[in-house]
């Protein structure tokens, strides 16, 4: 997609050209403001403020990276899944995550950054992705807890993003949300089966829930009073609800669902606040969150290393495909000559 309407103006413009550029920016801003006021959508060829573009690019590429890195904790368990059925389901889920990464990279590309640049940033360790994927998946029950809690939190976050003001992002999220619907259910059912199994299996399920609960809650991002990007993002109709609002909703859903599982959430302070009509939870360790984001989580190094390895291992496939395509073109040329 062509990059255009970038505000950067080459230095050697004549006064008339500068004036015309300023006029274009002013018209563009007016159009952008109108689209925001009408809660309509911005499309790739529209003028948009540089910060809007930057902010979207950051969010969408981080989202894409999260899907790609997010394959790892689960892919790890494909070979150890307890049945052929579970293996097939897990493979389908990991395939979906790869697909979601690709939808999102395409959406980000419409903002003018190439996929190679984004990939390189991820591999170089310069890009961020969701902190949740830097935690280890220790047992089979973790596949259940990840599906139920992690995908549950992701869905909670993503459903409102289907209405994000940037058209390509919203459309990608619609596809993602449709496909995710089975992810949470399959996780829930893994836990349900374990919870109704032997005492040992039930304990394994409870352990997994205990370990994933707090990291899942932190997926919604820092508390509202400490969330630097939120305000702008909400003013631009990218985000529709604040981090705390979404987190509170999620807690409410989990409280109901954990009862069906016959398990408990590792949080004795969960309560429904009658005054605010919102669910509240116990304190979260935001230092841990910052540490993990800064690259010092339990699995950051391992995840990045694995991504690099996969990228290198795939080099021959990319090269062969390019060589084959080039050969076909030559063949056709010879044929036509």
């Amino acid at each position, binding site marked *: 997609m062509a990059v255009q309407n970038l505000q950067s103006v080459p230095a050697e413009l004549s006064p008339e050209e500068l004036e015309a550029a300023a006029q274009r920016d002013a018209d563009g801003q007016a159009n952008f403001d109108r689209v925001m006021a009408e809660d*309509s959508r911005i499309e790739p060829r529209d003028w948009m403020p540089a910060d809007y573009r930057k902010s979207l690019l950051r969010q969408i590429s981080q989202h894409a990276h999260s899907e790609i890195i997010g394959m790892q904790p689960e892919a790890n368990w494909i070979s150890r899944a307890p049945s052929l059925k579970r293996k097939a389901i897990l493979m389908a889920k990991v395939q979906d995550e790869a697909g979601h990464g690709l939808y999102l990279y395409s959406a980000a590309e419409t903002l003018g950054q190439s996929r190679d640049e984004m990939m390189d940033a991820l591999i170089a360790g310069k890009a961020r992705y969701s902190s949740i994927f830097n935690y280890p998946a220790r047992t089979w029950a973790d596949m259940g807890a990840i599906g139920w809690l992690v995908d549950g939190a992701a869905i909670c976050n993503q459903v409102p993003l289907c209405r994000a003001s940037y058209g390509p992002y919203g459309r990608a999220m619609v596809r993602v949300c449709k496909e995710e619907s089975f992810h949470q259910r399959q996780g829930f059912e893994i836990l349900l089966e374990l919870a109704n199994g032997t005492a040992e299996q039930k304990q394994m399920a409870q352990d997994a829930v205990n370990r994933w609960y707090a990291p899942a809650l932190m997926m919604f991002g820092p508390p509202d009073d400490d969330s630097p990007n939120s305000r702008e993002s909400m003013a631009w109709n990218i985000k529709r609800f604040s981090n705390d609002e979404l987190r509170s909703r999620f807690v409410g859903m989990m409280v109901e669902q954990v009862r069906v599982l016959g398990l408990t959430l590792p949080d004795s302070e969960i309560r429904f606040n009658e005054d605010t009509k919102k669910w509240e939870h116990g304190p979260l360790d935001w230092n841990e969150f910052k540490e993990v984001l800064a690259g010092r989580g339990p699995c950051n190094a391992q995840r990045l290393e694995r991504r690099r390895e996969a990228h290198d291992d795939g080099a021959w496939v990319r090269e062969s495909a390019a060589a084959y395509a080039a050969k076909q073109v030559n063949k056709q040329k010879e044929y036509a000559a």
Partner: protein
Amino acid sequence: MSPHGNPEVPASAATEINREAPKASPVVETASVPTDSPAPVETKPVETQPTGRTGWGLWEVFVRSSRGLSHVHAGSLHAPDAAMALRNARDLYTRRNEGVSIWVVPADAIAASDPDSKGSFFESPQGKDYRHATYYTKSEGVKHL
């Protein structure tokens, strides 16, 4: 700048109309695309219609009906170049305000899957019901799931 809709100023003329019209390619050339590709899912160019007396190429038209929705294929038309294709598309496919944005793509540039190998090409999802939420019946009735 009028991003959409002003008939006299085609949307961002410089960028939207920067492609040459497809060369009036004789049918023979289409036939010269190697058909012995080993891949069962061989892609082949959309049938190129004879460009006829005028030498106008075939363009596929995609219309975005409103902001936030994707461009959807509406049909095709003949035109000598991209600018004319856009204008013709506007006149042909959006006479009742059906769109806010149009893409025209040279028909030759579209690679399509082979309708004859439909079965094997789309075989993979068959029998993979577990890709749908409805497969998971034990969690049915659980709220918000």
